[in-house]
């Protein structure tokens, strides 16, 4: 079929500094996300051939000290754009708020930040990645189903960790969990585990966790990964560890194989020469939302495709066994969430059986319409 339109899909990112893996045995990954985008661009072109569309992936990733907003302006000067946004919240909002970005679409594939879905929501921003509330709810439902309702939180002393803990507390209220204690882990990270420092870490972690009242699990909030991986199997009482380490709530996991997932689990390594990570999947899914939106609506103007994305005709397939769609109140993609993060087979997928909702049980995860603080025009 002759190509009737070639549509650019922009991958906008920045080489932000990220915590290196705790262990030398794990190779750091510097191309998270972009590989997922490259895979979906290839597949969208395969599909587009049959209906007359071609897609051009424009890779716009600026170095760590560069100005990504300036890059965005350069791109938007060419016209309204479809943007896969691999940006930290400050940059995401700066780009979304540019007057020239008004009729573009940005899909957030990187940031968990709650405020972006609430007070800081934007009409031109859509969220692929689940937020902290969805992740906390996904874990909480499982813990309640397991009848493990008493949670001992151990968190880092950072604003990001505090934000996640707020959502854990919200989840406890919603589903009947009880936070028995909250401890700030304030010891210097990392050093004591190298060169046979095991004895010191082994002794240190029980001390940190000893004083808590009776609890069923230890819920860790340690986004910068300084200590969270040390908690499991070292707590004072024998307890499972969940949260940012241990059992995690994820949009993608390397152990997940259902509903055609092997297609992605095999497809990404062929391209990227490494295993897939969560951001590869969210970039892939974000690109799929945009290209599917274009092909199925027949529109190439972002403003028109946006209308299609929030309509009830839009059904996004992404190996989760059910069609996913965007919540009209905050543009968050509603989706099942995998509980895994280290086990060879996933532990579970939320929402859990038994949790009820009047219209869509997947909306038991995250902020539902009546509670949203987002006011879209």
């Amino acid at each position, binding site marked *: 079929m002759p190509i009737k339109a070639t549509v650019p899909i922009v991958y906008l990112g920045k080489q932000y500094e990220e915590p290196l893996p705790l262990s030398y045995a794990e190779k750091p990954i510097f191309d998270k996300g972009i590989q997922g985008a490259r895979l979906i661009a290839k597949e969208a072109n395969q599909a587009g051939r049959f209906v007359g569309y071609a897609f051009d992936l424009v890779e716009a990733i600026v170095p760590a000290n560069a100005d990504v907003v300036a890059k965005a302006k350069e791109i938007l000067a060419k016209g309204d754009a479809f943007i896969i946004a691999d940006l930290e919240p400050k940059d995401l909002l700066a780009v979304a708020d540019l007057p020239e970005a008004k009729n573009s679409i940005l899909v957030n594939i990187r940031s968990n930040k709650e405020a972006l879905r609430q007070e800081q929501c934007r009409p031109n921003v859509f969220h692929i990645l689940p937020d902290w509330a969805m992740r906390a709810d996904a874990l909480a439902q499982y813990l309640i189903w397991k009848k493990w309702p008493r949670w001992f939180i151990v968190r880092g002393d950072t604003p990001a960790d505090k934000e996640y803990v707020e959502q854990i507390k919200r989840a406890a209220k919603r589903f009947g969990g009880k936070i028995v204690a909250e401890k700030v882990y304030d010891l210097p990270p990392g050093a004591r585990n190298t060169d046979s420092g095991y004895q010191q870490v082994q002794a240190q972690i029980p001390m940190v966790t000893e004083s808590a009242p009776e609890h069923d699990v230890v819920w860790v909030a340690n986004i910068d990964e300084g200590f969270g991986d040390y908690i499991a199997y070292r707590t004072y009482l024998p307890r499972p560890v969940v949260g940012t380490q241990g059992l995690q709530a994820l949009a993608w996991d390397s152990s997940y194989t259902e509903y055609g997932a092997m297609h992605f689990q095999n497809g990404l390594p062929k391209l990227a020469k490494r295993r897939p990570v969560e951001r590869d999947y969210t970039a892939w899914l974000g690109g799929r939302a945009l290209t599917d939106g274009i092909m199925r609506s027949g529109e190439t103007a972002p403003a028109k495709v946006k209308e299609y994305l929030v309509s009830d005709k839009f059904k996004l397939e992404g190996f989760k066994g059910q*069609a996913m769609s965007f919540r009209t109140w905050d543009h968050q993609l509603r989706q099942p969430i995998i509980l895994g993060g280290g086990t060879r087979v996933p532990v579970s997928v939320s929402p859990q059986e038994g949790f009820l909702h009047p219209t869509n049980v997947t909306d038991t995860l995250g902020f539902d319409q009546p509670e949203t603080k987002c006011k879209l025009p």
Partner: protein
Amino acid sequence: MTRIILAAASAVALLFFAAPAFATTIFVSNEKDNTITVVNADTLEVVKTIKVSRRPRGIMLSPDFKELFVAAGDGDIMDVIDTKTLEKSRELESGPDPELMAIDPAGKVIYIANEDDSLVTIMDIKSGDVLGEVPVGVEPEGMGVSPDGKFTVATSESTSMAHVIDNTTMKLIANVLVDSRPREAKFTPDGKELWVSSEVGGTISVIDPKTWKVVKKITFEVPGVRPEQLQPVGMDFTKDGKEVFVALGPANRVAVIDTATKEVKNYILVGQRPWHGEMGPDGKKYYVANGLTNDLTVIDVESQKAEKSVPVGRLPWGVAIMP
């Protein structure tokens, strides 16, 4: 007198040897066990378990029933089993990751969906020679040949399309957009309609082979069952073509649809995660494989009741039946 006795004796002898050596035989592919379970349809006893290459899914008999073809996805090969000896007799170099296949009514050509490569491989059944390759959409699975042998339809799960190949030219002549994740494509026995099941979309698209356009979409509804669990996958028409039995995956049911009116007449509870089944040769029973309960449910077609379940291997996928 002697002549009559002799004639009677030989008539008895003839009867003795003319009786069928084997009962109707059911073959089930076990995706996780890498085996085929062979079941005697009369006694419902497991006769044999045949080891095959890794990740067997699509399973189909040649029109003369002499060979059983098994698409082994992780083994990147098509195993061929001799139905007399119940042993593997040869292999077909199917191309990588074969999932499902279709065979032309004359039994000469096999069409294979290569899932990882987005290709349909067209192969001579006897020689294994590749006659052609047709690039289709991403993740091809469903394969159906029209009763007149003129067209082969492949569904691409990721691209959500049904692709129509003209078997004379081996070229794509139509690409029909359907709902999310189309798993199977089947022509009605009279060839007048093409049915395509969309697993995640939750619908069956009925396509007119004259125009290759969707003329009707069938949806499902079961009180108490979440809509997203109603996922149509395998479709099998009754012998007279008047009804079609559809496996609904996580809904744990088989739907019965009136082919003419497109109305769902009944839902039959079976085991967990039924995906594919097959009608018995006399049209009286329908056999469906339940992926998560590792068994095969026998449904009586007339009463539309599930009668019995037979344990098979792990993660059973497809069913093929030899009269």
